[in-house]
């Protein structure tokens, strides 16, 4: 398959970027990982057998790269020197463009308190609107796990939001 970079980039880069942002919560990192996603796609376009759509395939690459990023981060956090400088993304810090959207800000903060599995399931199923089949393809999980994580993730998210609301009121 010939990968038309210009076309695919124009069509999907924004959604890929947003998906990564939902997972990592940091614009620069999301931008870097988006670039990385398209680089990998161009390098391995010959291995894409068009069993899924190009977008799903790109999402799968993006997801794998984000996972690698988290894995690297976990590894780096063991190093004492790096620890204090690398904390900026462990807690979600709202960006400027979120300042006037109080509800979304609360949702972003709550999402980043969730387990990564729950966060991934919610982002794909509830925010990006992927079907179960597409989510299975992207995440490489079983259908049951996608359903469970979405359900449990939603429950956990509701609780976090509820707790946050109570704290806000008090």
């Amino acid at each position, binding site marked *: 398959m010939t990968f038309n970079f210009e076309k695919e980039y124009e069509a999907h880069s924004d959604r890929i970027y947003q998906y990564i942002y939902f997972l990592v919560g940091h614009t620069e990192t999301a931008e870097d990982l988006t*670039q990385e996603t398209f680089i990998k796609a161009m390098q391995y376009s010959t291995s894409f057998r068009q069993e899924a759509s190009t977008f799903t395939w790109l999402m799968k690459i993006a997801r794998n790269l984000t996972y690698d990023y988290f894995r690297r981060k976990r590894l780096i956090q063991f190093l004492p020197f790096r620890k204090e400088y690398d904390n900026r993304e462990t807690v979600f810090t709202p960006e400027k463009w979120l300042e006037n959207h109080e509800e979304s800000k609360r949702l972003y903060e709550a999402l980043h308190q969730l387990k990564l599995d729950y966060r991934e399931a919610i982002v794909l199923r509830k925010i990006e609107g992927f079907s179960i089949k597409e989510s299975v393809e992207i995440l490489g999980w079983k259908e049951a796990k996608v359903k469970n994580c979405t359900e449990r993730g939603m429950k956990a998210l*509701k609780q976090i939001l509820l707790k946050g609301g109570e704290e806000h009121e008090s």
Partner: protein
Amino acid sequence: MNLDDQLREMVRPYRDGTTKDNSKQAIMKKVKKESIRNRWIYRLVLVSTCAIAILLFASFFASTSIQQDVTATPFGNINEHTKIEKVIILENKNPQRQLNLRSIFYPFKESITTSEVFDDVIPILLSARERAIPWDGTFEEEVIEDIHFTFSNGEELYLKQSFEGEVSEHVNFLYDPNANMKYALSNEEWRTITALTDEIHSQHQFTRWTFIWKFLLVIIIIGISIVINKKEQKKFKIEPKKKQSSIVNILLTLVSVYIINKIINYFGTIHFGVGILILISVFIIEELISYRRTKQPIHWKFLSLNLFIALIFLILLTYF
């Protein structure tokens, strides 16, 4: 608004046109840089493989040719005061072929530097010098033993040992392939030569410790290979590689075994360099077949890494 709707309506991060354009440029720049780097790696692997192949071929031709002046005198330029310093033996499945037994590329050669039998061999060689008869260069046997002597006066002697005639009344001979002379050994002399070769063989027997060491080596190398393979699969997990069909695997194995057998019969023994060449060829052919079937790119870096590990493994297993 319920939570589902809230999530759907969440404000999303926005990238302006300039950011997108810069990002696009950066991607193209990185891909170009990467492709140039990959091309160089590919060229480097190709050039290194060719260089290794040429070196091994050169080593093979150098190691099979015996300098004629080494045995200017039939059965060696020695006298009764000359001492044997070293004896090397190697089974040769192509008797016509002259093997340079000093070469490090014959892993199955065996040698000895001290033996009580050494002094008994000198009179046999002296006797052979006097009573050797012309020889037409043919052998009756298909597998013979090559023997290489190094003497205290700096001379070297390359001989072959076999027998002629019916099994019940065969005569053992020592052949000097450079002088085209042969010498019929008496029973007593034949027993001396056999005692020498037996002593060399017994020194190279597979002991329990060698077995444990080689077994451990195999386990370690298999472990390293599994780790590297897993890393490779993880790195390219985007589209996992299709497994080679078992028919292709069986065919490749059969062809390899056939070729190796033919080569051993042609060269007379296992030549390490040729073994490595076969290994490199098998690796590359397997990757090319896999590429034709799956259309997945060949990962040259991992191929060369796997080859390197296999090479280290073979060297350790053969020489230690």
